[in-house]
């Protein structure tokens, strides 16, 4: 539930505060402590489970990555000192630094990274971030429990062959093992006496991995060890000597399998013939992370193998899904290891206190490899569930900075003056890597001309007048920075002139840039022409009324819906508005039960190929407009193997052009980030993905004299 009127009352009661700054500016007494008004309680801080920008801000100060987000939102080497990319853009080899340590003193190795990958794509973890690793070889099949290693020859396949379940039926569990004696779950190589959990004799556990695999930890002694999961209660993971475990699952299920289609193209008949379907027994199959496209040749090297060319993989390397988590803590308390006292961290900060729905306190880590980079001793993240409360707390000097957009929209008219100029020196807006748009269900609105008419009829330039957050109106799908605000180096990288309209996406600062095609911007004449064409083609089937859906509870969605309704009325189309509760709205739009609906998309990394264009691929799970165009598909496939990124962007641009001309979507504006930061806060830069390196900030007690 949103309490928008709260802030309306608030604003009315408050009036416009005078002065250069919004509210009080307290004296800085603790320059190394930042009080940050975050939004909401984070759903999790475990990198495998955190999904929102709110949670990730905390996750990213606690957990280091191969790379981290720099001030432009681009990857910056951190745990990895460098990387090699194979010629075919499939294989990425990262080299880890020496001397990186967990907060418990243990060295961070490539195995820790591999463990995180295995954990994120393992079905028992149920990680919502597993999709971020979806490009890795067999990651999806592993997650669905449908890829196995053959333990003995079956039909034409030798032992060791990778096979997948051939039918569409439910996956069968072949990873369950029992033991004749009780199992002492412990750390790898530890004596049975140091066990932290016991599994009763005969109780089935899930076998996750064994030592000696391509990416699993090495056995510390000559024996093979197995890593198992006992699902009792909260669940617990642990290592046991492999001999203590039954070698095979109980029972005798039959599963139709065939060799995995590693690199075969869909529809390739010869490849199909080379992988006949055979029936295997459960005991013939092993579920193991060895099927995944990861390998650890040594403690300082990790290799990622993608099923397809994946040019944006380096951009994924700062993603939470690839930030290692500590096996010793995760194993003991799989759901609850991130509580203070249990958590082991790797980043610049470590967790000190977590008061649910109130505050999370993190302090400087004593073991972080780059202490000179950490300017703060403490960050307190306040969980501000209500935007008005966050703004009020900032106003009275309770926090030093407010997380992007945790400011009520009713305050914006007071914060921004005419022309979108900030009234206060401590308030600013910046572009965000996100786009607000309206989906058109291409199954219900199958006529292309009708869709194009709808797109041409909307004058986006008027929208910021009532959204009032300096939003950047655009008809382009891929969000970015307004070209008019780029510096000379970026303009050169984009190959456009300063006066060019629209936005451009900076992919490497001053070096690589993507300029999305202009799209179907406001043009009433074109709209009328398309509409006339649609009337001719559809005849009696021309719809008399259309319906536009939005999720209830947020004022801006309603305003935009009404604005669109008016815009479409001007070309003679009657559109009914329907507000829906959020979950129902999400389920209905996903199932295609709508004609027009508002939506938005926020990117994780500045790359349209991985973040925005996939929304329109045939059969993609979140292709809400149910768009499917072979020309678009073909261009995306054509771009895949192209190593030269400028040439690649050119193809992607053509793909986006094809798609946007078909109008399965009407982009409206690029989201903006709204920041409130006290004037004494230094080096708290924002980046387009809203993941600033917070630990580099500091508070300047002498800020008044430094102005």
């Amino acid at each position, binding site marked *: 539930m949103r*309490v928008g009127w709260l802030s309306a009352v608030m604003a009315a009661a408050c009036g416009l505060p005078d002065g250069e700054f919004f509210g009080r500016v307290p004296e800085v007494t603790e320059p190394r402590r930042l009080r940050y008004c975050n939004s909401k309680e984070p759903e999790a801080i475990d990198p495998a489970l955190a999904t929102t920008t709110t949670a990730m801000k905390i996750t990213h100060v606690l957990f280091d990555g191969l790379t981290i987000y720099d001030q432009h939102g681009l990857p910056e080497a951190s745990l990895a000192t460098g990387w090699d990319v194979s010629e075919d853009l499939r294989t990425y080899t990262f080299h880890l630094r020496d001397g990186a340590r967990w907060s418990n003193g243990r060295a961070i190795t490539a195995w820790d990274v591999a463990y995180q990958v295995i954990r994120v794509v393992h079905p028992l973890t149920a990680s919502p971030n597993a999709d971020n690793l979806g490009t890795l070889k067999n990651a999806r099949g592993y997650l669905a429990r449908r890829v196995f290693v053959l333990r003995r020859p079956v039909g034409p396949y030798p032992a060791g062959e990778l096979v997948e379940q051939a039918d569409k039926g439910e996956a069968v569990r072949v990873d369950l093992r029992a033991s004749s004696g009780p199992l002492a779950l412990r750390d790898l190589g530890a004596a049975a006496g140091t066990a932290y959990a016991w599994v009763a004799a005969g109780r089935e556990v899930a076998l996750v991995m064994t030592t000696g695999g391509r990416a699993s930890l090495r056995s510390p002694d000559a024996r093979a060890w197995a890593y198992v999961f006992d699902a009792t209660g909260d669940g617990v993971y642990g290592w046991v000597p492999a001999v203590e475990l039954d070698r095979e699952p109980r029972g005798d299920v039959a599963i139709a399998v065939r060799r995995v289609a590693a690199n075969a193209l869909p529809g390739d008949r010869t490849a199909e013939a080379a992988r006949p379907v055979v029936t295997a027994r459960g005991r013939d199959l092993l579920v193991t992370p060895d099927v995944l496209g990861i390998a650890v040749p040594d403690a300082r090297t990790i290799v990622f193998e993608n099923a397809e060319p994946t040019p944006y993989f380096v951009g994924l390397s700062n993603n939470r899904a690839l930030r290692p988590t500590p096996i010793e803590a995760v194993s003991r308390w799989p759901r609850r290891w991130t509580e203070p006292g249990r958590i082991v961290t790797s980043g610049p900060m470590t967790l000190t206190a977590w008061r649910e*729905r109130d505050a999370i306190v993190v302090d400087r880590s004593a073991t972080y490899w780059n202490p000179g980079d950490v300017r703060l001793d403490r960050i307190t993240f306040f969980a501000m*569930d209500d935007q008005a409360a966050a703004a009020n707390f900032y106003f009275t000097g309770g926090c030093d900075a407010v997380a992007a957009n945790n400011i009520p929209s009713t305050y914006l008219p007071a914060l921004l003056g005419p022309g979108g100029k900030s009234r206060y020196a401590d308030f600013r807006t910046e572009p965000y890597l996100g786009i607000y748009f309206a989906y058109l269900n291409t199954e219900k609105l199958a006529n292309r001309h009708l869709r194009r008419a709808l797109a041409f009829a909307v004058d986006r330039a008027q929208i910021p007048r009532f959204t009032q957050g300096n939003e950047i109106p655009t008809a382009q799908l891929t969000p970015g920075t307004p070209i008019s605000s780029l510096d000379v180096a970026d303009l050169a990288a984009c190959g456009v002139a300063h006066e060019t309209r629209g936005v451009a996406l900076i992919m490497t600062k001053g070096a690589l840039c993507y300029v999305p095609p202009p799209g179907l911007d406001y043009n009433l004449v074109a709209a009328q022409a398309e509409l006339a064409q649609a009337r001719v083609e559809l005849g009696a089937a021309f719809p008399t009324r259309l319906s536009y859906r939005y999720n209830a509870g947020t004022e801006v969605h309603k305003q935009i819906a009404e604005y669109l309704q008016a815009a479409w009325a001007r070309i003679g189309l009657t559109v009914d508005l329907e507000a829906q509760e959020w979950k129902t709205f999400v389920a209905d739009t*996903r199932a295609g039960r709508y004609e027009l609906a508002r939506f938005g998309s926020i990117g994780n990394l500045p790359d349209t190929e991985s973040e925005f264009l996939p929304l329109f691929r045939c059969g993609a799970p979140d292709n809400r407009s149910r768009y499917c165009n072979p020309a678009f598909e073909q261009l995306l496939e054509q771009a895949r193997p192209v190593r030269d990124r400028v040439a690649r962007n050119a193809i992607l641009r053509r793909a986006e052009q094809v798609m946007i001309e078909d109008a399965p979507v009407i982009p409206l504006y690029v989201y903006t980030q709204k920041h409130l930061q006290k004037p004494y806060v230094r080096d708290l830069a924002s980046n387009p993905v809203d993941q600033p390196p917070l630990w580099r900030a500091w508070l300047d007690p002498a800020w008044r004299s430094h102005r």
Partner: protein
Amino acid sequence: MIQFVAARLFGGLGVIAAVATVCFFLLRAAPGGPFDSEARMSPEIQHSLEERYHLRDPLWRQYAAYMAGLAHGDLGQSIKRPQTVNELIAAHFPVSATIGLCALGMAIGLGMTMGVEAARRHNRWPDHGLMALALIGISIPSFVVGPMLVSLVSVRLGWLPPVRIDGPSGYVLPAITLGLIYTGVIARLARAGLLEVLGQDFVRTARAKGLAERVVVWKHALRLGVLPVVTYLGPATAALISGSLVVEKVFQVPGLGFYFVNSIADRDYPVLTGVFVFYVAILVALNLVVDLVHSWLDPRIAQRNR
């Protein structure tokens, strides 16, 4: 008496089971699920998430498992948080209860005083004035009172913190915001109850034998006059101590009220059912207490309950 209490307790268990059942099925009948979001999620992940929370089991089995847990006092595992529902309640109920009891103290103290004073000066200007105040207290919703208090007391005057409970001063504004409506209701109930009693024969007798008016009102009349207030206090206390979303939002208080609303939007089935069951349990218990207090205040009621 013991029989009466036992019967009421048994009936209460039935009510709790019924509420749990209705909650359980109503929520699952609502469209969408806990893992629907705008972010893309492949069917494999959805599948493994649903498996983890047993959402793929047949509904009757989920229901049987839930009721079996409930019988042991286990309210289940939250889907959106790492904690169990029992832990969530244990962590957030004390906050709500503290604010609720402060508000209750204010409502009883201030409300009773206003009611008694108004009744004693029936139809004179203090009566009209106090009842007008009470009406204002009842009519202004807490989502208006809260932000206005913040704006005036915290933002303008800087006397109290605008948000968060960081020491005792943090309880003041939330308790006032929460208690205002109840103060008004109690004042009106106390006035009406007392007026009815003040006209009765035993009061005239008490006055006739020369007792001080203070003793007549506060000792003799109020004992019966307070009955409507006591009846009201049962559900009122349950509502006060189980948290209020508005107060928690305005003042950023980590109380229990949040879960009554947010777990619906999250489709966090166990949490929603859990907090409702908890609330109903409090309500049943407090209504029993109210009945017992009634018997004590008015022995005629005890006679009937026997």
